[in-house]
Every structure is written in C-alpha cells, then in structure tokens.
C-alpha cells in the first residue's frame, strides 16, 4: 500500500487556498441526497456534524454519552491557540506553524500544521459569534495568555474552563441542527464496528447502551471523531469512558494507525495517591505561567521533607532547585510538556521528589501571591485551586501544589491524508482521533484548536470532494456486509459474557496500564519494550480465558461496555509497544533511553526516522505491517529543539 498524503503542490502559504479551489463541490440541491455519519460529538465531532448539517448534508451523529455536552473536550482547561496577534507581540500564522512543528519535534506534516495555523483565526471568530464568553480585557477586547512552547501570548481562554465553553458552543450549534432535523442524534449509542462495502466506508454497527439493541446505520461517508486512546494506560487525565474502540475497530477493518507510540505525558497533574485511584486530574498548564516548579536541592533535604522532619516553608531559598528555570533560562517554567515531564521524572529518579511517595515536584505560587496578591491569583486560577484542594485536602494558597506527570493526550491515531481521509475511502478521522498535526508532542492549547479546525473548517470542504465523486443514490443497509459486521459484533458480546472467569475488566485494565506506564511511558528502552510485549500478549490470553462479566447484553451493562473497550486497549497497547520499539530515536513524547544527548534531551534521528509510521492490521496474531510516509520539510530547518 502506498500512502498518499495528497498534500497540494505550491508554496506552503497557498496550499490550502489552492486546495479549496481544486476540491470538487457538491451542488447545494444535491447535498440533501447525501448521508454522513459522525461518530463522537466532542469538539471535533459536534463541530463537524453541525457544519455538515448547515451545508445541507443529512447527518447522523452518535455519542456514547447521555448528551454531547459530556464529551471529554469539556475538561480542557487552559485555552485555545490562535494566530490573531491581538497582542502585537510578533505572532503570525507562520510563527504558530513554526512553533507547532518545532514543538512536535519535527514529526508532523508541514502542510497540515500550516493549515491549522491559518484557520485558527477563524475558530476564535466563530466561537465568539456563538456566544462563547472568552476572557476579556477592561476595554472589552479579548484577552490572551501564554502557554508552553511559545514566546508570544496567543492563547484565548475562558477562565480555567476553555474546553467547556468551546464544547458548549459546538454543542449549541449541533443542538440547533438537531432541532432543524438536519442532524439525527443518537445518544448512549456506541459504535462497535465499521461496515465497508466495495472498499468504501458505508456504515457502522452500534449498540444502544440502555437497551442493548444492535443497530445498522448506512451513509455515504463516515467521520470518526472519537478522541484519543490515553486510557490504554488505565490512569490518565482522560475521562473514564474515553476509549479507542471505534478507531481500533476501524483499524481492524483496514484503516492504518499512525504513530501509536506518540503519547503525551502532561507535567502538571495531581499525583497518584493509592491503588484505588481511578483517574488522574490535570492542573492546567496555564498554572506554569505563574507557578514555579522546584524540588529540594539535595536528596537529603527531600528525604527529610518526605518523612515530615522539615516543613516546606522551612526550606530556605538556596536549598530549592527551580530546575526548569535553571536548565532552560529562555523558556523557564514554560518549556513544552515533554521537556517539563521528563525533567520532573529525572528529579524524582534522583531521589529529590516530594510527597510521601516521592513521586511529585512542587508547583509553587508563593512568589506570585506575594507579587500580585491572593485575589489576583484567585481571579486567574480560582477554580483550579479549589479543585486541587477538594482532591488533596490541601490549600495551595498556603502550601505549594504537588504535581507529577500523567498521560494526557495521544498524538498518534488513525492515519489520514491532507483531506483527513483514512486509508479507507469514505472514512474520515478528525480531532484527537487522527494523527495529523502534533507530531511527536502537542503544544498546550493546540488540541482544542485542532479539534475545531478539523470540524468547522477542514472536513466541510474535504468531505465534499469525496461525496462529489460518489453517486447521490440512497444508501441502505441491505448489503450483506452489514449483517456480517453485526454478526461479528454479536459474537464478540456473547463471547465476553460467556467466559465467566474470575477477573474483572478493571483488573485487566489496571494490569495493562501498569505495563504501559512502566515500560512504554515517559521513558522506554528496547529491553523494557520487549518485556512489555510479552506481558501484554500474556495478559491478552488471560483476558479471553478469565474475564468476569455479569448481566446480559440486552440492558444497561457498564461492565460489558468496559470489557469490550479493555479488549481493544490490550490490542492497541501491543501496537504502541511495537511502534515504540521500532522507532530507534527519541522525539517529543517518545523518549528512548538509548537515544539521548549528554544533557538528557531527546536525540532525534532525522536521517532514519523522519517519517510517519503507519501500521496495517494483518489479522489476529499476525504482526502488523509497517508503512512509512516520509516527512518532507521544505520550510522549517530540522534542528535539535532548544528551549534554553
């Protein structure tokens, strides 16, 4: 299979405009003859469903939540980047493009990233028009803040709840189309398989989570906007229900999966407190604007702190190591996420971590409170401070926050071309579900940007190109492929229900997460990855022999839902390990211990690994086949990333 990225010819800045002119259009009267399925109604899905419906297509939208408003996009805190240059501080589309490519450690497609930066400005306009209450200055104009990996202020925000406000904006646009009847919304409905007819994506098989009813849905095209797969690690900042099932099953039907090992570990999360822990909570990156990250300068002091012999307040300034400021004076506490996470891990590995487990570093607001007053800090971060206190029982106005890295985002995902089409014609992937824009590391405030860019401003153009070349005949579920897919889904459910072993889905999930975090997490090695692969394969065998699920398939059965998702996570985990093992370099969130500079920074190998690794499913128990899409950098010079 040859991967065709379909990047338009011409200068970088003109590619998208030219492409928009070149794509085929569907005549307005014909649009209503096409049905489009959108799976997932978070930022990327809701914006796509609403925009496609506005254009006139008939949209069927699916969400496993009880309402589109619950999608995990809602939890994004810090903000959304846009190259508006409202601050007059030297920002531009080109700079946002450059920062994003560099932040991604040169493993993203230039053309995609440039388009993302271009449409970023439209996103802000669109959201404001929808009534999204972004933060404003006293003069009434929009406010910005800084985020990691950038030296300009280009992040738009709504206190610490930007994702919520943007999602509610997209949800409102979607709700409007539901009211018009242009979108038929299926809530509490999970996609369990993709249906391919004559090599084209033509529908999906779903399960109603309340009644257990299995349904077939046909359409001219299918858009997957089902988010990332961070929950492979069990503990992550993802929501409990976030899962990879839709994307994984599309992968098993032929869609290539790109760069699965590129996972982002977010530096500022509330540390793990015990085995019962069910998820990790992010503290927005924006906190690093005003909080200073430090650990005790010596191991001995850290030890005394952990055992309660000394209090934080008693540690004098010269005994504190503000390690990010020390090592990266230019960016200080605002280095990109992968760098900040790795350094926190290094400090803890050195024995200088804090908290009873020693797996945490301080994020200290004392200076900021002294400089600006507690009221100022409260206005900026009040909700985050309150959340921290609720979870930990500690008041961050008085003692520094303790933070530790946690799995947050997955840059990898379904491989898509410039049109966001996967390797299956008619199947598209948007938002975190695809791999396209963030390379090996995503910069803060870029996930919201990408989700909305894809949904509002890319897919409405590019899907038209495909549909215009598809006959506007009604599609039905009559083709035998539908019954076949449905039978497979039913068989899997039956299998899960009938094993009747001893271990719960959560039990397997935790075991998988443990393997992944230890061996395919913040630092990876060839040896560890080989062990991980063997352990995952063993876990998979045990899963299918010893799983315990009670109840039936014809009712709300949350254990059954979980079991099916864990089955997919186990398979995907193995692919992540394979991908991490094959990529003999360190880049962004993928840090192979064998490949680092003397200072411990990621050491890329551009000669051999400047490509997208896209994996093709080869059937059960066969290794996946690697395809490479070479990354061509015509505008950006590949250098060792430096934030010093």
């Amino acid at each position, binding site marked *: 299979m040859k991967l065709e990225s379909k990047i338009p010819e011409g200068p970088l800045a003109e590619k998208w405009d030219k492409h928009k002119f070149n794509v085929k259009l569907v005549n307005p009267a014909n649009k209503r003859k096409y049905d489009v399925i959108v799976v997932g109604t978070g930022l990327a899905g809701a*914006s796509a469903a609403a925009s496609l419906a506005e254009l006139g297509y008939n949209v069927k939208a699916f969400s496993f*939540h*009880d*309402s*589109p408003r*619950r999608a*995990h996009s*809602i*939890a994004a805190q810090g903000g959304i980047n846009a190259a508006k240059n*409202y601050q007059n501080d030297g920002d531009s589309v080109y700079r946002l493009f450059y920062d994003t490519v560099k932040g991604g450690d040169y493993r993203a497609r230039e053309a995609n990233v440039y388009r993302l930066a271009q449409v970023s400005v*439209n996103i802000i*306009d*669109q*959201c*404001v*028009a929808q*009534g999204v*209450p*972004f*933060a*404003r200055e*006293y003069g009434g*104009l*929009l406010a910005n803040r800084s985020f990691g990996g950038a030296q300009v202020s280009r992040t738009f925000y709504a*206190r610490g709840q930007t*994702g919520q*406000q943007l999602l509610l904006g997209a*949800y409102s646009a979607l*709700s*409007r189309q539901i*009211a018009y009847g242009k979108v038929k*919304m299926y*809530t509490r409905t999970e996609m369990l398989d993709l249906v391919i007819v004559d090599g084209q994506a033509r529908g999906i098989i779903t399960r109603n989570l*309340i009644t257990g009813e299995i349904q077939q849905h046909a359409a001219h095209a299918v858009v997957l906007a089902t988010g990332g797969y961070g929950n492979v690690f069990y503990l992550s900042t993802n*929501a*409990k*229900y976030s899962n990879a099932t839709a994307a994984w099953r599309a992968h098993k039907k032929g869609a290539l999966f790109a760069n699965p090992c590129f996972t982002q570990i977010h530096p500022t999360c*509330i540390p793990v*407190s*015990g085995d*019962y822990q*069910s*998820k990790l*909570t992010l503290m927005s990156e924006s906190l690093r604007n005003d909080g200073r990250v430090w650990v005790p300068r010596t191991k001995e002091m850290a030890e005394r702190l952990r055992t309660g012999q000394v209090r934080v307040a008693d540690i004098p300034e010269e005994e504190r190591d503000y390690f990010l400021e020390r090592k990266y004076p230019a960016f200080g506490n605002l280095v990109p996420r992968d760098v900040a996470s790795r350094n926190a891990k290094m400090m803890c590995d050195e024995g200088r971590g804090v*908290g*009873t*487990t020693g797996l945490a570093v301080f994020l200290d607001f004392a200076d900021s409170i002294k400089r600006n007053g507690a009221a100022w800090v409260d206005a900026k971060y009040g909700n985050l401070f309150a*959340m921290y206190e*609720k*979870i930990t*029982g*500690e008041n961050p106005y008085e003692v520094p926050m303790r933070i530790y890295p946690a799995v947050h985002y997955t840059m990898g995902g379904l491989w898509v071309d410039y049109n966001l089409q996967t390797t299956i014609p008619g199947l598209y992937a948007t938002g975190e579900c695809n791999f396209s824009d963030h390379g090996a590391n995503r910069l803060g405030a870029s996930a919201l940007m990408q989700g909305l860019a894809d949904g*509002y*401003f890319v897919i409405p153009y590019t899907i038209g190109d495909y549909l215009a070349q598809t006959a506007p005949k009604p599609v039905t579920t009559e083709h035998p492929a539908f019954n076949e897919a449905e039978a497979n889904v039913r068989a899997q459910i039956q299998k899960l229900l009938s094993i009747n072993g001893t271990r719960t889905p*959560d039990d397997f999930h935790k075991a998988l997460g443990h393997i992944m975090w230890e061996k395919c997490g913040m630092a990876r090695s060839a040896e560890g990855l080989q062990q991980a692969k063997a352990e995952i394969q063993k876990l998979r065998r045990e899963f299918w022999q010893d799983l*315990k699920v*009670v*109840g039936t398939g014809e009712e*709300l059965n949350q*254990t059954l839902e979980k079991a099916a998702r864990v089955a997919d996570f186990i398979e995907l985990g193995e692919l992540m390990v394979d991908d991490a093992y094959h990529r003999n370099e360190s880049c962004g969130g993928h840090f192979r211990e064998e490949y680092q500079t003397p200072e411990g920074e990621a050491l890329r190998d551009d000669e051999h690994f400047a490509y997208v690794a896209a994996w093709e499913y080869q059937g059960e128990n066969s290794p996946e086949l690697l395809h490479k899409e070479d990354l061509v950098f015509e505008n950006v010079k590949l250098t060792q990333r430096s934030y010093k």
Partner: protein
Amino acid sequence: MAGSNPNAKPLNLTLKVWRQKNRNTNGQMVDYQVRDISQEMSFLEMLDVLNEDLLRKGEEPVAFDHDCREGICGSCNLFINGRAHGPEPGTTTCQLHMRKFNDGDTITIEPWRAEAFPVNKDLSVDRSAFDRIIQAGGYVSVNTGGVPDANEIPIPKSIADQAFDAATCIGCGACVAACKNASAMLFVSAKVSQLALLPQGQVERKQRVENMVAQMDKEGFGACTNIGSCAAECPVGISLENIAILNREFLAAKATSNNLA
C-alpha cells in the same frame, strides 16, 4: 494525594443504595457493606470498590453515571445522604472525597428524582430533557464561517464575566434533583441569561426565552417557587439571580415579541 494525611484511618461503611432493574420496574434500597475505604478516595472510587466486590461475587454492579471525574462533564449525579451531590457545597459527586465521612457511617445513595428524569437503571437517570430544552433555543443561530472578527464587538469585562458565570453550568441536573418542585429554572436561566447578556445573543433574545420556557414546561419540570435549594446545591455556583433574569426576559418577550402563539 498521599501526603495530605498519611495516617488517616480507613473507613468501614454501610451503604444504602437504590437498585432498580430498568425504567419499567420498581426499585428498592439495598444495604451493602464496604470495608477499608481510604479517606483519600473519591466517592466514586469508593463505589468502584463496591462494584468490584459485587462483580467478583457474581452480583450485578451498581450502575451509575460518571465520566470525567474532575467535576466538569456533569455526568455524575448521586443524591447522597439526602443531598444532591452530597453534603459538600460547590462539589460534584466525583469531587466529593471520603475524608468528609466518618468510620461507621451509613450513607444513602439515590438517583436524581424527577418525573422528567426517568431512571435508566439503579442510579443512572435520563437527562435528555435538558438537551431538548437547549435544542429549543439555547444557541445563537450562526452558521460556520462568515462571522465578524472576534474583536469587532467589544464586550465590557464585567458583562463577559457575568455571562461566563452563567455559562459555567455543567448540566448535571442537581438543581432539578434538589428542588422540591423539580423545577429546571436554574438550568434554563443559566443559558438564557448568558446569551441575553452578550451582544451576540440579542438577535434571537425574545424567541429564545419563549421557546426554551415552552420546552421546559413541555418536559414536565415544575415551576420555580424561589426556594433556593437549586442554587444552594449547584456544584458550580450558578446564582439565583439568573432565574430573576429569566423571569424578566420572559415577561419582556411575552409583552413585546411578535409571536402570537
């Protein structure tokens, strides 16, 4: 987090949990014991422990709604010890932690109760009525593209902040659950006042409030009698002032709109 109080004693608790097979059957309270519950656990993690126990014993786990577990998605919805989201003010169920309880406590856990929120199973309820209210008008009718520059219309910071405070509603339904009248006014008013405050919401201001209130009534929610339970239990602090704004918007719209229906 480990460290805030490493010596806190684990809790043994009695849970009284509402169990109901599905929408069409009756339910009842069932007693369960949970042991060795860490005080650092969240309430839902405590329920996870219960569910894992039940599952291992071959019993059906308790169904409940939850997702983000960081207080923003609005999925979690438990009526704990007679209070929506439990005893802590300004807290969703998922952000309630076990350090707020004592060893030996008996905790009752019920689903939201309202005619408009039918029970799916156990503690999970159907809140799609809220979606239908939003579909009736909780939006600004702008298509994608063709909108003015974001800074074209300055909005006073105080207005933007006030709109944000209303927009912060997470749609959990605690207001309905806590209200003696099962009224959804706080939810509806949050959206109405957000959009009534912002210049972008002006064009459809009248029809929005008329349509949303009509849908709210159609869904079978009660009428507000200004008791104030909703705002007291709202995990994100939506203020009662929004209901006053809703009333005002409704009155003004009914008096001046061109809608004869």
